[in-house]
């Protein structure tokens, strides 16, 4: 047996370790390099069991590899409105928003969720592997445009190594959270955040996630991370690794930077128009506006195929033998019991229901263009 295709990991020496590294090892987590960090790809129960737990009960994920940046100062709002596709000015204190950080060509440097903590203070979460690029990009604009000559008008602080981030996800998370937190949090609105405590440990809780399920993400002070993880695990939540996280986000049709989006891909091509403002000026806004008005040559679509042999990143999508697209991500979907993938196809093939061929290592199989997301969580009866 010899591995010929695996989800790509960025192999670097001297990987960073989260505060939960020893916890993962003790739990039997299989540690792999990802985005400059050593992270668990799965625990002994396996990816399928972990996905099942999140879709049916609760799961916890160590997502401390993702960055935590504070942006503050009188020009912080103006700065964020210059580097983000979404609006900071219109975001109310107490709310969070998902959007993109684009380059001048409209390509995606990173996608992010940012939280408005106060009138002139924000928390922004970049992806693990993109944190250095985002920090450098932000610093460049701060120095050039918003705090020239070292004024204090906009300041950035990277607290990634002083804090941890834990995601608590699944249909059981809302009911469980009030038993776990010191104050009730179950009536938080999606994409809002609150300051709370878990058995005395201060946490910043957002009703956000990357699984397609309801749930919470918690920013925890560094020395409380293990304690908060343990409390969540003791509540019955299943520890889940990067493998489950990837399957869950794929089922939910959520893009992963480096796959569906990158510096050569625009949010318009990726179908992320609703996270892009066309009524403000910012880096890349001219290009994005032009694409919105004139259309793009290729667009991101979902594809499904019967059975369990999965589309994988890089496989070609064909129409009558001619390459018309490329897969960006794919997996067997345990929730839907079929194989699913996302990829770019020429604009004329984007209609759901269209059938195309997929070249799976020389084998040709028929795939159906499918509306995203593949999986939508059932509404709660309340």
């Amino acid at each position, binding site marked *: *047996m*010899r*591995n*010929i*295709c*695996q*989800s790509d990991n960025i192999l670097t020496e001297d990987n960073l370790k989260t505060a939960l590294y020893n916890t993962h090892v003790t739990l039997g987590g*299989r540690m792999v390099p990802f985005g400059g960090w050593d992270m668990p*790809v*799965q625990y002994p129960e*396996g*990816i*399928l069991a972990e996905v099942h737990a999140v879709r049916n009960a609760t799961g916890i994920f160590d997502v401390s590899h993702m960055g935590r940046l504070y942006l503050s100062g009188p020009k912080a709002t103006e700065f964020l409105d210059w580097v983000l596709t979404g609006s900071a000015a219109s975001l109310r204190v107490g709310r969070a928003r998902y959007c993109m950080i684009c380059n001048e060509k409209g390509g995606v440097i990173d996608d992010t969720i940012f939280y408005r903590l106060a009138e002139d203070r924000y928390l922004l979460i970049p992806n693990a592997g993109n944190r250095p690029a985002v920090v450098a990009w932000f610093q460049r604009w701060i120095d050039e445009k918003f705090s020239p000559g070292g004024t204090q008008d906009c300041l950035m602080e990277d607290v990634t190594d002083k804090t941890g981030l834990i995601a608590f996800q699944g249909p059981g998370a809302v009911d469980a959270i009030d038993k776990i937190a010191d104050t009730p949090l179950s009536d938080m609105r999606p994409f809002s955040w609150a300051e709370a405590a878990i058995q005395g440990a201060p946490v910043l809780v957002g009703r956000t996630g990357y699984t397609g399920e309801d749930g919470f993400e918690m920013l925890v002070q560094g020395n409380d991370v293990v304690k908060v993880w343990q409390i969540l695990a003791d509540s019955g939540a299943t520890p889940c690794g990067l*493998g489950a996280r*990837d*399957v869950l986000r794929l089922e939910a049709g959520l893009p992963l930077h480096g796959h569906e989006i990158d510096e050569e891909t625009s949010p318009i091509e990726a179908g992320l128009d609703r996270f892009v403002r066309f009524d403000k000026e910012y880096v890349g806004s001219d290009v994005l506006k032009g694409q919105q008005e004139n259309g793009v040559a290729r667009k991101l679509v979902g594809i499904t195929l019967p*059975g*369990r*042999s*999965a589309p*994988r990143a890089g496989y070609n999508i064909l129409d009558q033998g001619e390459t018309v697209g490329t897969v960006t991500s794919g*997996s*067997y979907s*345990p929730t839907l019991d079929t194989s699913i993938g996302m990829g770019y196809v020429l604009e004329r093939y984007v209609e759901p229901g269209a059938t195309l061929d997929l070249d799976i*290592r020389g084998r040709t199989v028929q795939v159906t263009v499918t509306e995203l997301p593949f999986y939508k969580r059932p509404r709660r009866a309340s």
Partner: protein
Amino acid sequence: MSPDDRKYTQEHEWVMVDPAAVGTAIAGITEYAQDQLGDIVFFELPKVGDAVAHLGKMGEVESVKAVSDLFSPINGTVTEINEKLLDHPELVNEDPFGEGWLIKVAMTDVAELDALMSSQDYDAFIAGL
């Protein structure tokens, strides 16, 4: 500890003489291989009658996260494949040395088995990986 009633390859396949059919071998992948793969979701195996060659590609195995080539441990002709794996590939995760066997092969030369690794050699080999 890998069972000592069979032989092993560096590609993490095992092969044993089929006690029920003279000159036939049963082959599969090892406990180490299934553990490395994680949840297995799909096998592509050769067909009955196909010729397989020692360390030649004979199929593929897909787990949730990875695709791997499968190599035949011996030369011969496929006489049977484990049909149960088509619907239940997880049998290989659960019992790689038993219920999760992959194929049966009419061996070209039974003596080829002597050249493969013993269980002790294989266990030492994976301990060093």
